[in-house]
């Protein structure tokens, strides 16, 4: 697995680029063998990965606990949806850029009062933000479509891609896969950006601020600017992820962004591993599989999926997973992986020491 | 009676106490002396169960204190006035005293009145928040709060710290009279070796976590080397 080296800290940007490109290519190749339903799920997972990358950066690297990222997702989604509603011919890349910028701006607005707050104050503040945002959207129903939301369906599969498919469901298959490919590529780009950010000077300053803000200040790091920057980055990632998420659903509406979405995001991030790049991807993959996983558990336990319990199984499982992970493996799946690698590494070192002696 | 044998305490790599053994007997004051960082506070914290020793035993009478929770050690009659006195500033004088009596069998209001009789200044300030007390008043409150539960053992961590010499002398007298009248086992941790040795019966000298001397207070006070190298009592 030499090519995965690029994801390690000490590696340079070009090697990192190669690693991310290889990973993205593998994911793209997988979309060719997946059935359309699975491709849609994969697309959702890729969108969620983008959001978790931002959240992991915010919580894991800057040490600021946010429960507001579902709110930032909503902002990005509405920005994209409303724009696309009025300017249907705008290239998608521009709509996404808009969602990213507007999401980032909403992060700035929340950050200005919030970066002065610590821990639970901050968590509660951001929770209040995400609780306030969807009612606010519903209030301006002439623009946002109120409860029903707005149609967001500007994704067009290019002709050359269409031609790769044949048979009865050619269009459906092509559309599903194109959506997944687009989402995977977007996730790849954001992953690359975040990988560089993690290991940049700013990233190091960010961790210093998290671990010892007094020392950081003495070393000339501007605390509130650094914290605000973390928020803006996380919110723009959430905005982009939210737009992508809504594009996959073809609508933007309030019920896509309930408070429980923040819980889901937190679960996936913690499960994957707080503050790790691979954890965000693991979280996205878990999200992709979650529907299947839940129906599998329902059938294993003999619970009728249409029953009350079956319908709420996902909420129960996610909550329990979150609690268990935090209690017993607070560094998540990526943390377990790192531990295993380190163990092997230190054994190797021991072995070579013995050889010398 | 407190009997400590072979007690070792580590904080990570730091060895704060190394195989410490000594006895403190009822009706006597045992002074524990030593420079900063010698391990005096750690010793008292180990007796109270606030730190877990690596090796060794601590006996209260016949009973081992190993794995007994701090609050239960307190309930067994060990009163501990911690470094910095541990007066709760957000509570009133009376509330602090009440708290000291809660866990014991004594009648609370009688106990409080007895302490006010002993320390009249506390009675005058009974409704004041302790954050407003002076250092000397706080020390008196801490003593009163420890004595109100009629303990068998009294652990004092640098009670003279920050007090004027005259107040310190008063305090030492109070400690001595409490010790004798109640047949208390007193372990008195002090940096101020001079005033501590004046009232103590026995003394233990700690250096870098190990006992370098122990015996009667008079013997320790008379030892030139101890005075010079460990207690800083000889002026050059």
């Amino acid at each position, binding site marked *: 697995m030499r090519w995965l080296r690029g994801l390690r800290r000490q590696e340079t940007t070009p090697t990192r680029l190669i690693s991310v490109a290889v990973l993205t290519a593998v994911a793209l190749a997988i979309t060719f063998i997946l059935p359309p339903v699975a491709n849609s799920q994969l697309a959702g997972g890729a969108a969620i990965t983008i959001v978790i990358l931002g959240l992991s950066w915010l919580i894991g690297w800057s040490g600021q606990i946010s429960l507001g990222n579902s709110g930032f997702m909503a902002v990005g989604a509405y920005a994209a949806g409303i724009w696309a509603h009025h300017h249907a011919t705008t290239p998608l890349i521009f709509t996404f850029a808009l969602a990213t910028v507007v999401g980032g701006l909403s992060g700035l607005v929340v950050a200005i009062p919030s970066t002065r707050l610590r*821990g639970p104050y901050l968590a*509660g503040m951001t929770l209040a933000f995400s609780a306030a945002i969807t009612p606010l959207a519903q209030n301006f129903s002439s623009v946002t479509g109120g409860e029903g939301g707005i149609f967001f369906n500007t994704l067009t599969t290019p002709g050359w891609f269409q031609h790769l498919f044949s048979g009865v469901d050619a269009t459906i298959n092509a559309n599903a896969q194109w959506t997944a490919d687009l989402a995977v590529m977007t996730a790849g780009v954001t992953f690359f950006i975040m990988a560089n950010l993690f290991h940049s000077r700013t990233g190091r300053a960010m961790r210093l601020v998290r671990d010892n803000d007094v020392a950081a200040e003495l070393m000339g790091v501007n605390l509130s600017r650094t914290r605000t920057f973390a928020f803006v980055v996380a919110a723009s990632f959430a905005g982009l992820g939210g737009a992508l998420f809504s594009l996959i659903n073809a609508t933007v509406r309030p019920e896509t962004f309930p408070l429980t979405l923040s819980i889901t995001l937190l679960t996936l991030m913690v499960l994957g591993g707080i503050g790790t790049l691979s954890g965000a991807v693991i979280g996205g993959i878990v999200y992709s599989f979650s529907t299947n996983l839940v129906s599998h558990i329902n059938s294993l336990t003999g619970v009728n999926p249409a029953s*009350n319990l079956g319908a709420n199984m996902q909420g129960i499982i996610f909550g329990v997973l979150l*609690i268990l992970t935090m209690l017993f493996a*607070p560094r998540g799946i990526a943390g377990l992986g790192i531990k295993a690698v380190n163990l092997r590494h230190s054994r190797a070192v021991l072995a070579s020491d013995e050889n010398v002696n | 009676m407190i009997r400590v044998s072979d007690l070792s305490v580590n904080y990570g790599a730091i060895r704060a106490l190394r195989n410490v053994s000594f006895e403190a007997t009822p009706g006597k004051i045992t002074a524990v002396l030593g420079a900063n960082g010698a391990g005096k506070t750690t010793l008292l914290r180990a007796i109270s169960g606030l730190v877990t020793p690596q090796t060794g035993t601590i006996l209260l009478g016949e009973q081992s204190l190993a794995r007994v929770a701090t609050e239960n050690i*307190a309930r067994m009659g060990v009163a501990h006035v911690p470094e910095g006195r541990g007066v709760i500033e957000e*509570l009133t004088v009376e509330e602090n005293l009440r*708290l000291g009596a809660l866990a*014991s069998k004594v009648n609370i209001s009688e106990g409080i009145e007895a302490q006010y009789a002993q320390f009249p200044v506390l009675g005058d300030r009974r409704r004041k928040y302790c954050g407003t007390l002076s250092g000397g008043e706080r020390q008196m409150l801490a003593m009163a709060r420890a004595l109100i539960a009629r303990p068998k053992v009294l652990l004092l961590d640098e009670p003279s710290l920050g007090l004027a010499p005259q107040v310190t002398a008063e305090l030492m007298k109070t400690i001595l009279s409490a010790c004798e009248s109640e047949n208390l086992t007193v372990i008195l941790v002090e940096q101020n070796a001079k005033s501590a040795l004046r009232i103590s019966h026995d003394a233990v000298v700690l250096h870098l976590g190990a006992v370098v001397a122990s015996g009667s207070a008079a013997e320790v006070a008379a030892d030139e080397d101890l005075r010079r190298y460990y207690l800083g009592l000889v002026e050059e």
Partner: protein
Amino acid sequence: MSSFLTSSFMSNIFGGLAQGVIYSLVALSLVIIWQSTHVLNFAQGAMAMFATYVGMTQIDRGLSYWWCVILSVVVGMAFGGITERVLIRPLYGKPEINPIVVMVGFLGVIEAVTTAIWTSTSRNIAAPFSQIYFKAGGKLVLLSPFIIFQIILAVVIMMLVAALFRFTRLGLQLRASALAPEVARLLGVRVNRMLTIGWMLSAGVGSIAAVILASGSFGLFPTNMDGVFVAGFIAAAVGGLDSPVGAIAGGLIIGLTEQFVLAYWSPSVAPLGGMIVLVAVLMIRPHGIFTRSVSRRV
């Protein structure tokens, strides 16, 4: 006089106070456990809601309203105590994100389980007080017997809690454990037990808030405490997370603010009103209005 009572201004005051006391109770319950364990319990609302389901649905079995209220509080207290023992105790001394995450997960579990058991349909819980508004001089005063009951019950509970902390042995030990756990231990206070009792008390107070809310016009449904929790948290933060008096004042401030925003702008932006108050307060005093110490833990 009667025209004063029926004025829209007074109506908003009544409405704001009625809502505000619920927020005050939730804020108070959050402050109780914040003081003792430095955990912000994100599942506070959901736990109270669950206890209310267990207690108040006994009305269907023929239990009277008042017994159901008592049962809800008892269940809530037990639930609070067990939660502290099982979920929170292993997390003392861990980074502050850990208990936050665990309680957020717990919130998800409780709401999903409640929906699985009782469905998401709102159920009506009739308090033995009329919800019909009084009239003065032919016009409505926005006060009903139920609203008066709601305010009185909340105030009584707050006074009981205050008296418990202020005047009892237990209250003194609870305060000492929160203020100086190590010193309390040295004085023989069973601090661990106090932490559990603190959580029980807090959950009991939260349950009263949920019972009042469920007896009102929206009824009882699995997410009915979500918005109230957020508002209660905002209230606690406005007052200062370690000030019980601040929590109560904060609740009233947020209740009134929301009511006026709702009346003069739109119901759907009411939550925003509370948030703006919070932002304004925290800009000036990052630890709330009523906190004594502004010193920061480094």
